[in-house]
């Protein structure tokens, strides 16, 4: 296919999974994978990867730093099923058992540019207190059957999760040929994190409903 009339559009994602903050646990490592729809295909880069294990920093920040690079290129014909990154963090617990420390997933930013995402992670809860105790003793905590489940909504209502720590990811997104298929990728600039503070308006006095004296 000549370049002038492409049949697919390309999405290039680079970036890194930078740091994480977790209560408890030590020597954390994670693996990430990408989940995408049927119309997406990885043409270059690692779709699944495991990181080195990292120790908590000794300073007051108490963070885990991985600085683990992401570099992947997708091709696609349909934005439906936009790729998501799924990160599962593992670590050792009190008894030196390898346990799950957190799951998280997020869509790859849909605009080109540099994006920083702070992803909070969660783990499934034990079904009962007895099981919780058991899992703590045996070191076999409940895990998702398939980590990619967290990219879908179906069936999630039956699970209970507890949030646990967060992880910071930076994405650099580049896109090619999106416009040729009629997709507008939006502003290319960096979207500000916080809006500028607004000047406080004069105080409001509105009669409250319900205080009827009629």
């Amino acid at each position, binding site marked *: 296919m000549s370049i002038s009339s492409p*049949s*697919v*559009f390309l999405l290039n994602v680079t970036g890194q999974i930078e740091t994480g903050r977790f209560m408890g646990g030590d020597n954390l490592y994670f693996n990430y994978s990408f989940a995408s729809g*049927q*119309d*997406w*295909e990885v043409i270059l880069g690692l779709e699944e990867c495991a990181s080195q294990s990292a120790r908590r920093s000794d300073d007051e920040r108490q963070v885990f730093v991985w600085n683990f690079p992401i570099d992947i290129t997708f*091709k*696609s*014909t*349909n934005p*439906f099923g936009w790729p998501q990154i799924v990160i599962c963090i593992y670590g050792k617990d009190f008894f030196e058992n390898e346990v799950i420390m957190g799951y998280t997933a997020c869509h790859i930013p849909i605009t080109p540019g540099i994006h920083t995402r702070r992803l909070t992670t969660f783990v*499934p809860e*034990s*079904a*009962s207190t*007895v*099981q919780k105790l*058991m*899992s703590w003793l*045996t070191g*076999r905590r*409940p*895990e*998702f*059957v*398939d980590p990619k*489940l967290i990219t879908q909504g*179906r*069936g*999630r*209502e*039956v*699970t209970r999760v507890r949030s646990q720590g967060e992880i910071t990811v930076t994405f650099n997104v580049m896109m090619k040929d999106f416009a040729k*298929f009629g997709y507008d990728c939006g502003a290319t600039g960096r979207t500000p994190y*916080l*809006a500028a*503070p*607004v000047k*406080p*308006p*004069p*105080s*409001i*006095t*509105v*009669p*409250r*409903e*319900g*205080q*009827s*004296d*009629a």
Partner: protein
Amino acid sequence: MKVISEDIERQEEDGSIRFIPSSARLHVGTQDNTSELGVAGPSGSERQKPGRLRKKLSGRPFTRFDEPPDNGEAVAVDIKMRWQKAAVQARTASRVESQDFFTRIWPEEHLLPTPLSRQKTKPTPKHSPGVLHGKLGTKPTAKSPRERSDGEDPDDDDGIESKESEKSGLVASQLQLVTRTVPAKYLSYHERCANDEAVLFVPSVLPSDLHNKIDAGTELRNLEEEGLYVGEKPFIKQTNINIIENRLLQQGNRNWFSETGSLDRLDNPISDQFYHHLPLDLETEEEPLTVFVRPRGSECLQSLSPDDGGVLDVELSHLTFAHHPLFSPEHVLASQLTQAYNTYVERAAAGITKILRNKLLVLRQSLAKLRQIRPDSKRHYKTVHEEIDSTRRLEIYRKEIHDCYEEFVAEAERDRILLANILKIWKSIKHLRRSNKYYSTSLKLIIKKEDVNKEDEEEKRKEELEEEVKELLEEYEEEYTKKMKKYERKMTEWKAAHKKRKEAKKRQQQRQKSALSENLEGFLLQAAQDETILSSPEISKPQPPRPVDKHKVQLEVLEVFSRTRRPPGEPIIQLELSQSSSVMENNICPEQERRRREAASKVRVWVKVLINNKLVTQTPSANFGNDFTLHIGQTYRMALSSWPRSIVLQVMEGASLRQTLVASTFLPVPSKTNICKDIFDSIHFSGNQVVSYKHEGVGCGLPESEYGHHLTCGVVHYRLGWALGEEGEILAPTGPPPSTVSTHSPLKSHLHPRANPAVVKKWLENARIDPNDPSNAALVNHLQKAASGKSKPTTYFEIDSYEGDFCTEADLDASVRLRVLQLRAEDVPEFRRLKLVPAIESEVLRKTLEKYENKMAVGTETGEVKESKSHYLWELDERWERVEKLLASLRRHMLQRYAQASSAPKLEDLVREESIPDIGSLGTSLLSVFKARRPLKPERKKRHQVRGVALGDQNVQLIVHVARAFHVPVRCESSRSNAVQQVDVIQGNSLVRPYVEATFQRSVLRTSVAEGPNPTWNQQLSFPFKAPNDNFSPSSLQTVTDNVYLHLFDEVIHDLLEDDRLRDSTIYHRIEKRWLGSLKIPFSTIYCNAKIEGTFSLEEPVVLLGYSRESPPSVNLGISKPKGEPNRSATHLSIYITLEPTLPPPEPLKAQFESSEPEEVLSAGSDWVATLSSRYSNRNFRTHVLDLSGKLVCLNRFIRPLKPPEELIDENLVETAHRVAWYVSLIPALADMTLFPGACDIWANSEQFLSMLTGDEEEHAVLLTNFFLHLGKTAFLLLGSGIPEGETCYVLTHEDNDMWLVWNASTAQCFGARDAFSPLSAVYMLVNQDNIWANVQKYDDPPRVHFDVQGSGWRPFFSRSQPDPGLPSVQPQQLMFPDVDTKQIDQLKERLEITLRDAIMKWRSTQRTPWNRHAISVLRKLVRGLEEPRATGKVTSPDLTQLATIMTSHKVCGVCVHQGYSSIASVVEAVHSTGVHLTQAPDTEFALALHLKLYPAFIISVWVYVASLVKRV
């Protein structure tokens, strides 16, 4: 020291513990060594006698501190100073001094003041004065003069006392001023309780008395019953409410209670206003962690931003009651008259009728003009365009005239009706006045008549009439011509078709008469064409349209005229309403009327204005006059801080002290630019009270009274708008106006302006929405509008609220890409796995879609079984294709249903977690310690089920354990010498060397070779299981149609070694395998039952050449073999098949299926099943099954005696039974589960079964039962469990000799009920056309079951308490068995033979495959004779004499295969499985013979005889 303790004691009794400074104590101790005894003595004794203590304490000794200070005021000035001094003194006291304090012997005279000052200073900073008092107050008691007087040692302290009193007199007086000493007071518990009761109030948690809560005299109301809206109040615990209520009642505050006697609470305490405190100076703070970002306002959200207020002017002009309870009947009529008159005036002012009439006139004129030009020749038109244009214009004019005319007629009719109505009311008023003899209203209608010339009018009318008739006629005429044209066109079509038919019929007749013509091919073609012509439905003859009837049209127009026009000669009427007539004086009126007037004069009415539910202002109350109109005429100006959410007018009414709310009405909130208009707006209000009077007042809301059935209602005339500022600007609030409908209304989103009111109404009925809830007002309003027919379907453009569609449906269908994407989303199997659907339309593969769409099209075509019947079997294979498509469409349909009903994933599917060990498993695991390591009778462990997703990429294996076989036929080696000779018993290994070869999913595994006719292998074969698309979910697993084939082969070893000398060092063998039998187990059975274990009889070749069986084992020795029972000497194989890991079975379809049966039968059925299942958990009961249309049908409705085909009926009943069973078994079987999703069981009726020519065991069994019933047998459909099918259906018959026979309908085998080798393992239910019986016996294995359904061992479904509703059977009255052309069978046979030969040659691609003609001809003869004995159930050993000649010259090894024909491929497959072609002997010749026996309804029995022949040397 006792003093101290006593001190403490006393203080404790006072109720508070006080700190006692140690120095003070010591001081007391040292100072009053002697006196302490005086105090301690009595106190010690007192403590033992509390009664006395109490007495003493209450009458405390008087101390000087207790004396009220006389000079307190005088000294009080100095207090501060003295305290300071004392403090300074205390500070300056040196350390030595303080130590000396304890050791030194004090010169008493000098030292006394110092300790006192210390006493004072030390505690003060630490303790509150009150605390100190008790201390200081009690201590000196020892020195009180009174005490000393009765003390023991008066002289000892006398000197000190006198001096002390001098000095301490001063100090004491100071102390008295600083602190007041109150004697410790003892209160008894009861006293204290009494005190508490007087002061404290403990609210009760019990509900308060209802009568306390409402004012005496007012009646308790129940608002909900009265039909008022009662919102849901936030939940508060009842006890808390009770406490609050009791507390409020205690305060005597009844305002908090509503008329219902409950707390007046708000519905929702949450304000929809938004408040947020903003940090005022953001800059001074450090960088804030969170920044408050104001929510962005949008049109749809209520604005949260504040706005500058506006000034609103509300001008209330007057208020008129359209109905009031105090109306007299005359008033009611007068009010009606006024309303009608107002409409009359309005209409007259608008003059709609006149305008329309003029319009009509103009239109007619222009039409006439256009016509004038038109009839002339075409030369007037300069161009063709012009002509077209004029034609179009003509059309438009006509249409417009038609519309205008209709509108005119409607308006004119309304005018007439209105006029008639006014006159009627006026008449009744007059009538009333006359009968009453007094006037209550001043209303007077003046009717002005204007006489007209009758003749003129008549003439005019005639003209008009004619004109209109003409017009109408023209219109009808045109329509007629149009219809006529259409008719003609149709007629010609019909004629042509009719002609064709006739010709075809003729030809057919000719053909029938004459014999076969020469040109066969042409003849056939012709016949085919004719048949299609004849079979196509006849077009009905079109009916000519009716010509226009002039007379009828005239009548029609006349009728319209009489309705709408003034009849000629009737005077033109002008109406005028005035208040000119006078109301009668009170004293003239009768008592009733006078009382009404008095009551009316007392009533005062005023209007309250509420903004945002807050009372803003109210008009002065005033009396309405006789005309029930309140003149207000006031403007209220109000400043608002924000947009008003609601402006409410409340009409209040009051007589003397009482005041009631008559009605409230909402004024529309003015838009931003609204200022006060010139004209008054009017708004209706309507109350909901029910009032009735004893006097003349009509009351209101009384449905049965003539005048009083209306509710109080009326009109307020008002003006509303924003005031103008000084510079003429509008003083509206600056913010955006709030949306009119409250945003939190849950219904708003549902209510689409174009929503079909009928649908909305239906929904509303189901939703049971409170129509009084204000949040539902919009919806109710919409419905009311719809009900009154006001909301017509709009013709104007309206933006659909469902924007957001990227494209229309049409676009979706047109675009190939979008179609493909859509189908993929719907999980259509063909598209499910599609990846990277191209973004460009042209690149999408159309082929798949086209293929799919073709399939769908065919599927819908054959959707009706009956339709396909008319083209009964043009071509056999074509027919099969059709059936397959039909099945596919059925399957799709069921899949959809299944998808809808499929349950959500469970936690186990998503989260992997250790399960908790329960007591049972813990116990067994503990017990396992004591278990034998190698038990003598090992048991299989139960395994966990692995759920769908959890499998991941695990390897699933199908495990086949082959244990042993019985009665394997043995080679007749003797046939070498003489085929006919009796077989000698030859023992040993050489007889047969059987082994089992298993085939599953194209992989083949075999056991080792065992020896002898009863071999034992005990070998495990495991196959990798491949799920379709690697999807291990139940829905995909059940589509697996693979079978496990187990073939029993005999391994024959031919020694090829010719030189015996080499035997020591060389082996040269040729191994040949010969098929002895096979077993087919569908994967679906394994999957459903999780495991299959048992001994199965092998399906064997009918004739096994070269093998014979040992004499059958004497299983039933002693019992004489019953007649008709076949010889059970088949080879049996013991196997165990399972899946590792266990896959979850499909879940039963839980969806509620509809049924056309009465509800009570359905529920009785489920109850019946539930009670039985609870008792017999391992038996499967049911009363209803699904039929092909997905409806639940009671089982007994499937049973109905049906006549089997004529050919099968014989005089011999036993033979006929076998024939029929044979016939039924020839219909190919296909498991339901592979056909339909989920564990649902679908039963087709026999007609559908015969037309589909495929079905499960139950369809076979139902058909056979029906046939048997027709043959006069006592037959039941037996539901039970069999080997290897699992849950299955058999047929049970009762024979003459009191024998029960069990028939397997799909194999045509029959067994005695007590047969040990019967494949039936359990009996659950029996069904016949009348009833359903459940097996409630202890045992369910057939030999131990009593089959007498009248006995106690069977519980019927239909009984006296639950009678049979007598629903008709789902079966047809009669089955049609169409005859088939035998020619086709011959063709099929030929094709089969060629295909098979080709196939065998292809399989033996490395060798030559010669065909032995002689053998073939012999086999053909042989194979023909096989059908009959099998069909009649007689087992006779085949006549092998014909083979003798071949047998002598050749070693023959042959196999005969039989099956009901389903497709050529299945026959080929069966032949392949025999493995005859595998022989490797050199110079092998082959023989193949086929026999097809055709039965009615295209059921074909196929016999294939394949043999390999090796020439004997």
